[in-house]
């Protein structure tokens, strides 16, 4: 089933039980926490992301069939991701699976493509919004908190950085450094550890055997921003690509996750 779920049980349906155990589910009383009492994360020091890595109180919604929520999460107003790539690189799938992972962690998520006449090689954009309340807005992501660039040749063709929030995250698939890509100034303006290049295509070739980097980059994004956690991402990948392809993509995404963890300060 393409976007099916494993039923209302908390038991994982996939062979990644060890990863599951990383998450401690809070007691049912934690569900009663009044979300309005938590305040708006964007008003706290550190902006909207402070909510992601912030301290307790725990805030868990139990509607997600997977119950993968990290109890240390606090209320997230909205985190917006824009993914740039080319037709055939799996841009739309990446946004969808990011949303499935966020949903698995008990959040609301919305993923949608830019609705162009997608064709192989043409620039394609897809969006993903993640929040702890219902997402009603339908405009494209105009001010992303995080950007994923699946194909660095787009830097010369499309204004991929349009609207990027100050201090936003930029993850680019490239073997070059930001400086070599001519992004030194941007790197400086975004602040330490906010612009990262990783050799995602190389990792895809190594683990998947094909140069398809979309899900590899999601592994990197998870480590980079902490907006979703690796186990939820792997569940989403396995649901979408059951069998060998899912396993290989999971291995590649895990490698990217570990690589990014070694490059930037990790999220608790």
């Amino acid at each position: 089933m393409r976007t099916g779920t494993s039923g209302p049980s908390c038991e994982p349906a996939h062979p990644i039980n060890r990863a599951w155990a990383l998450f401690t589910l809070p007691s049912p009383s934690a569900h009663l926490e009044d979300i309005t009492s938590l305040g708006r994360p964007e008003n706290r020091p550190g902006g909207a992301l402070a909510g992601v890595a912030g301290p307790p109180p725990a805030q868990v919604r139990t509607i997600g069939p997977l119950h993968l929520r990290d109890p240390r999460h606090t209320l997230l107003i909205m985190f917006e991701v824009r993914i740039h790539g080319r037709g055939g690189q799996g841009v739309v799938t990446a946004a969808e699976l990011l949303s499935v992972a966020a949903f698995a962690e008990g959040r609301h998520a919305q993923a949608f493509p830019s609705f162009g006449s997608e064709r192989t090689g043409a620039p394609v954009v897809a969006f993903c919004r993640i929040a702890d309340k219902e997402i009603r807005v339908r405009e494209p992501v105009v001010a992303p908190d995080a950007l994923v660039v699946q194909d660095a040749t787009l830097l010369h063709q499309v204004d991929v950085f349009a609207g990027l929030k100050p201090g936003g995250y930029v993850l680019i698939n490239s073997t070059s450094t930001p400086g070599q890509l001519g992004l030194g100034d941007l790197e400086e303006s975004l602040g330490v550890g906010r612009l990262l290049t990783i050799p995602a295509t190389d990792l895809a070739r190594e683990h998947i055997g094909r140069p398809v980097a979309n899900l590899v980059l999601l592994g990197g994004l998870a480590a980079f921003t902490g907006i979703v956690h690796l186990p939820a991402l792997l569940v989403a990948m396995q649901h979408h690509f059951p069998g060998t392809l899912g396993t290989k993509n999971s291995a590649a995404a895990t490698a990217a996750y570990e690589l990014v963890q070694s490059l930037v300060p990790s999220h608790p």
Partner: protein
Amino acid sequence: MRTQIEGSLAVAQAVAACRPQVICAYPISPQTHIVEGLSAIVKRGELPGCEYVNVESEFAAMSVAIGSSAAGARTYTATASQGLLFMVEAVYNASGLGLPIVMTVANRAIGAPINIWNDHTDAMSQRDSGWIQLYAETNQEAADLHVQAFRIAEELSLPVMVCMDGFILTHAVEEVDVPEADDVARFLPPFAPRQVLDPADPVSIGAMVGPEAFTEVRYLAHDRQMQALELIPQVAADFAEVFGRDSGGLVHPYLTEDAETIVIALGSVLGTIKDVVDERREKGEKIGVLGITSFRPFPLRAIEAAIGDAKRFVCLEKAFSVGIGGIVASHVRMAMSTHPIKNYTVVAGLGGRVILKTSLHEMLDKAVTDSLEALTFLDLDTDLVERELARTRADRRSGPAAENMLRDLGTVRAASV
């Protein structure tokens, strides 16, 4: 079960849960994923007794739907845009014959110029076709409306069009509690047709009717739509009882109680408008939103009641009637005919033009001070328009307007002559 799912697949699963007996459709963007999803469900054997008919055109799709519905089969089809236009003759026949077909329209613009993106021109072109038209705000509501549509259609013996925004909803992946077959069975009784082609008890359907009874047949068609005004809220209430959530009904008022300004719209743009209204409410502005779910029948009284004592309304429409302006706005003015108030038509989102919160704020800044044009095209590129008008003035043979403007924008390169 709550699941993170593409809107099209959620609708496919919801339709399957209604146990249709015939599904006949021809693929067209942005409807395709819905019928692909249903064809996969039938192929997997999950809809025993259901015939999935691959047809050669939309005209055939509606014709097969008419035949199967007349034979007493619960019948579903889906289309969009040019596909809807291609089946129009049969669309009118389906309602004229009183056949309870349910059809999804994945709303898309109509050419020329050809455009695959979202607006409401396709469904609005069929507003006089005699079908009931329901517009979904979210994918949850799109899924739920299909379940309600079969109940409404079969109870009244009238076809129902469920309109959902192409791409914006059909291709969006979000949380949907997809109605399940067991719950649907409690809500939707088996199809008991009012008229049926049965060899054991033969009747003819589709007689020629002359001046002696044509007006009466038409009058009864209107009367059944007036019955739908009563039935649609009842069905929504029954749905809430079984499924535990509010979906459907005639209208969705939001913060309208004390509102001086009410923004009226149909479909998915309501979500964006609600966010904008929340932001304006935080600054103390008395503003609300009125979503119209049932466009046919048009709930004049419910809309009048929701507008109440507001000072003005703004109709944001994803279609317009060329040569006069707003379609929804003219309907709402009729609802307010006994005590007219200031009103504005804002045409937005044509052919997939994104509707931005910033643009809505700018427009509403003018509306609340009554400085908005009566008919406004949101984010119209006036410079682009002026350049084309200048060309037509300067040169008798100014060429095709659409191509000229694409060249101005650099989308198409200048001809190398």
